[in-house]
């Protein structure tokens, strides 16, 4: 029963709007705080990696952005599926709010990956399976946003892009697998594999905290964007009048 009342609340725009407004400062504050602590831990407290020296510190920005770019897509697809199956408008609004955030983080993951690649591989771009998958993910985001922009009717755009998001999320594991397969065929002589150095605790905790910080940050930004989407979509003005005055 309890889950059902929650489900119904999340279907109601005024309730979600109020919830978002109440919680954004707390979640955002927690995100900011943990980000600062994790930065200090990662840049100052953590010792050098014995192979990569200080270059390994880029893991504290590359790994969270890369992880977030995937997680945002998954969140978007789940929201889209909920919107399609239960015809829930709030879920469609949430999916719409996810896309630009995810695309930006994909760009950040690609950029930081390239900057990390230069000292490690000797080139800004190497067709590494993870970077390549990240690039394809960026194209998936572009397609999603392009489809949304291409359909004028809001309800229609919601549903069509939701189908695309679900198809995309089914495809992502296949894409990752195919890219790894492809990479194994053409082994490029890389100086060093990125990621997964044997980490001691002083290196690990800032990373884990950074993951948490980015997840909280995403939640806060999503709630802000969700409010904007709800205001734009809602036709029944009575609650909007209430929240705006």
């Amino acid at each position: 029963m309890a889950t059902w009342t929650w489900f119904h609340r999340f279907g109601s725009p005024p309730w979600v709007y109020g919830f978002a407004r109440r919680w954004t400062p707390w979640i955002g504050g927690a995100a900011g705080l943990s980000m600062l602590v994790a930065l200090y831990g990662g840049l100052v407290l953590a010792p050098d990696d014995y192979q990569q020296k200080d270059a390994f510190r880029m893991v504290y920005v590359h790994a969270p952005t890369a992880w977030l770019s995937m997680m945002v897509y998954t969140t978007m697809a789940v929201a889209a599926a909920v919107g399609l199956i239960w015809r829930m408008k709030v879920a469609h609004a949430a999916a719409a709010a996810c896309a630009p955030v995810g695309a930006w983080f994909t760009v950040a993951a690609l950029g930081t990956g390239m900057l990390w690649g230069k000292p490690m591989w000797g080139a800004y771009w190497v067709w590494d399976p993870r970077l390549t998958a990240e690039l394809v993910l960026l194209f998936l985001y572009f397609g999603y946003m392009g489809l949304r922009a291409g359909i004028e009717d809001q309800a229609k755009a919601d549903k069509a892009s939701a189908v695309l998001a679900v198809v995309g999320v089914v495809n992502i594991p296949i894409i990752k697998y195919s890219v790894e397969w492809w990479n194994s065929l053409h082994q490029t002589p890389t100086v060093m594999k990125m990621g997964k150095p044997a980490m001691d605790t002083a290196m690990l905790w800032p990373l884990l905290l950074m993951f948490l910080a980015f997840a909280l940050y995403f939640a806060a930004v999503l709630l802000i964007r969700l409010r904007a989407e709800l205001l734009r979509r809602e036709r029944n003005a009575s609650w909007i009048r209430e929240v705006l005055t």
Partner: protein
Amino acid sequence: MKTGTLEVARLVMARDLRLAFRKPSQLLQPLMFFMIVATLFPLTLTPEMSRLRDAAPGVLWVGALLSSLLALEFLFRDDAQDGTLEQFALSGQSLTWMLFAKTCTHWLLTGLPLALSAPVAAVGLGVPASAMWSVVASLALGGFALSLVGAISAGLTLGARRGGVLLSLLTLPLAVPILVFGADATQRAITGDAIAPPMYLLGAIAVLGVTLAPLAAAAAVRIGLE
């Protein structure tokens, strides 16, 4: 008496084949496009056969992908414009099944001819004669998977303005695995290795596509008709 499932598929296929043969230019254009792309590579890269042979899988697959994108635009668009697609959706038959029949016909009319004509382009790229059957087989199977994936994007772009570019934007990322495995199969054929491993993977994608893509395409078409 309500028409049976197989008869529905037969009617859809017969209709689309008949329509295609009344307008053969639409059928030939993607093929010619493919041939031109394959010709441009030696002109821009090198006439040296050994180097072309290295590039051949890429040229064949990118060419096949681009020409299948051209053909995909017509998969649902004409039927949506003249209102017949609406009648598909209102026939009381499974739209998923009818679109599957349509997609298979589309492959028969575009993917299969392209695969069959690929040896002509392949000879010019220095592909040895012994590899031709494998090249045809990989392009035929990969083309089928491409048609299935493309049917989803073709359905999704029905409701959009400027569908053409958008169709490519949606299809290309989804087509990455097909391209990877397909090009690998062609590569192995050229070097004389066993093509079975990538062909199995292509087959797996095609099977997954057969089960899921028509469902997604039907959902997309219903949304597009709104």
